[in-house]
């Protein structure tokens, strides 16, 4: 597993998200109300909306384009909608945040 530092917990607002640019597109990194951190592709399974721009509630985000609700834990659409987005492993070391880029590399292969 290739952990890459992306910044600090305090870089992301609570109930908010930031993007990490990667060669394969943007990864959205979310911070929940209770400081859990999740990373998923910044690409809604519905029509590609930027999930990082959505409203974060619990461990889910509502896509800003058409209000699909995506679970941050599983990447799956909640409710009646069907679809999933790739989740990316995250590690918190103290205040520092890492994501596992290998997951991306695997997909490329």
């Amino acid at each position: 597993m290739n952990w890459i530092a992306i910044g600090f917990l305090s870089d992301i607002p609570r109930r908010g998200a930031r993007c990490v640019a990667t060669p394969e597109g943007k990864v959205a990194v979310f911070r929940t109300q209770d400081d859990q951190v999740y990373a998923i592709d910044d690409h809604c399974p519905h029509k590609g909306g930027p999930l990082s721009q959505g409203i974060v509630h619990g461990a889910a985000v509502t896509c800003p384009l058409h209000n699909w609700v995506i679970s941050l834990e599983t990447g799956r659409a909640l409710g009646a909608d069907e679809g999933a987005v790739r989740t990316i492993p995250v590690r918190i070391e103290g205040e520092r945040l890492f994501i596992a880029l290998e997951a991306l590399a695997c997909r490329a292969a």
Partner: protein
Amino acid sequence: MTEKLVIIGNGMAPGRMLEHLLEQAPGRYTVTIFNAEPRVNYDRIMLSPVLSGEKAYEEIIIHGDGWYIKHGITLYKGHKIIAIDREAKTVTSDHGVTEPYDKLVIATGSVPFIIPVPGHDLPGVLTYRDLDDVQAMMLAAQSRAKAVVIGGGLLGLEAAAGLNAQGMDVTVLHVMPTLMERQLDPAAGYLLQRAVEQRGIKVITKANTQAITGNGKVGQVELADGTIIPATLVVMAVGIRPNSALAKQAGIAVNRGIVVDAGMRSNDPDIYALGECAEVNGQVYGLVAPLYEMARVAASQLAGNEAAAFVHLDTPTKLKVTGIDLFSLGDFAEGEDRQEIVLRDAAAGVYKRLVLKDDRIIGTVLYGETADGAWFNDLKKKQTDISEMRDTLIFGQSYQGGAPLDPMAAVAALPDDAEICGCNGVCKGKITGAVTAKGLTSLDDVRAHTKASASCGSCTGLVEKLMVLTIGDKYNPAAVQPMCGCTTLGHDEVRRLIVAKRLKTIPAVMQELEWKTSCGCAKCRPALNYYLVCDWPDDYADDYQSRFINERVHANIQKDGTYSVVPRMWGGVTNAAELRAIADVVDKFEIPMVKVTGGQRIDMLGIRKEDLPAVWADLGQAGFVSGHAYAKGLRTVKTCVGSDWCRFGTQDSTGLGIRIEKFMWGSWTPAKVKMAVSGCPRNCAEATCKDVGVICVDSGYEIHFAGAAGLDIKGTEVLGLVKTEDEALEHIVALTQMYREQGRYLERIYKWAKRIGIPEIKRQIMDDGEKRKAYYDRFVFSQKFAQVDPWSERVSGKDKHEFRPMASVGFAQAAE
């Protein structure tokens, strides 16, 4: 082999009969219905709420198309039966369909009585019977012209109230000295007249209509005493008569209505009649309860139970005009052998009268306070000797036996066989029994299983109290639509509690109001954030994480994740320097699309999020601020060029538009607010389909509001005419503040106004100067905190994190 059952007419009575029949003898008949109206079975009692705009047609459908399909019933819509051949046992429709029957049910209802005065057939004279009439009235009401309703009975008053709610100037003509004289005594009739007049409806009693005149269409109504009332719409609601012509033509015995026995059978043993067209024991009926009783009897007969028989019962009358409580039952004529008990409370607008004979109630009139109607009805039905409680009887049930005045206790004390729903003849025991046995928890469930409160709905409060008594907290008051899945409370309740409990943060609201989720959802959080911004402008710290992305980054997200930017151009006016600055920004940031908007602004589309602060910095250099094109807030004020340039302009519409925009920009509202100011009634700024609009006239400024030109199209309502620009501004600001304080999140002004009522808004903004000033002051206070340009804040570094990626990773590895 199934028998063929043919039904002529598809109103409420045959609809109910079919429900019973399908329950009692499923599969016995192949059913065919001919409906002269081109639609399914709907709740005719609810036409008045449709007319007043409180309900939509879809909400009053009893049996949708699916119901007929599910039960294998053939429904011919828009087919009028023109002949019954009793020899051949067939019926034939005006479209030429001939259908054989084994059993025939005639349910042709009634036809409205038309007074045969000259001009009764002019275009613009309507009756009030079916949805077509209601739609025609609503169409006529759009002109906001004058209407005359002939007939001050139940139907006439409901029509008048509905037309009044639609904005028409309404006059009711009634030939008798007091309104609803068949159901009310003169005292109650007088109170009713006063209440009707307080709503702005004119009432003329002892009015003898002599002619309706006009040039090819209705123009005026002339009375016998020479009075002339201008009108473009005349509604005749003077009564109904059974529609029995078809039966008569087929040789079936007809008196006033089609003569049937107690089993609803006519003199032809294979032909039944029910509903308003039927006459039983010399009586014809128009209220729904006895008609449903007929339906029950006819269904039992058709199912083979020949013992089923119709029994006459007095039915209470209730008026379905919002805000007027009225109940009348039985016989209340004066007589030597009768005594009466009367209670008058002028201050509270209450009048109650009980007519007694031999210590038993034979008649009841309640006005202003009708909660005890069910109890009095019960005492009357059971012929209870009331001599012991005579002194306190009129005060109602909760005064008996020293019990406290608690409406809950009153309902609890009702016996199980007390009638709760008069329309459907449902007693208390049946409701509580169904709730317990079937585990019902919502009003809709109870309506589905028992029909209680499913027709006119006036007993809904009683049914809800019964549910609370029976299942307590488990009762789910579905009348209120919850804000979202996170709470059981509706928007209004939440807004009220935020103020009452002085809740000033989203977590405080969620804690105190017992939110079911830890941090809400994408529906409730933006709503709560708005309510708190609006109610505590100085205390509340705006929670950007609870705002939709557009309001968080002050630009409009597009389908590809880029943004569009609309700078503010006050009143739609710009100049060379501004246009040059925009052109430079477009070049510098390679903005792919520039477009003029419907709100007289320039939109730059396709800007990368990272570029937004730099774009704003350049625009800011030229003096631009945010145009809030993304906000649930004041968007644009469109203007025309007004008296400065236009040869027709009456006032400086451009100047007023700019003044309004400079005064109100930055304010958050429940939903977007778009305004316009037109310099003359030619209305080039299209002000009459805006949330708020102004039409300048020579004598001042006509203020409009509650228009729509999106999903719905709706012309504005007129708030009123004011003389000066200052007044115009004050009224518009006060109106907006009223909407800000009362609107539900995402509810546009026209929907809010429909909910609150145009007259109430006019009263508070036009008539009540103190209220208007208070609204105005609260808006001005709130603007102190709201008028900060969000773009320049962000150029200065606010919310930097929003516009920059957190990190860029992996590119080096990819290159290796």
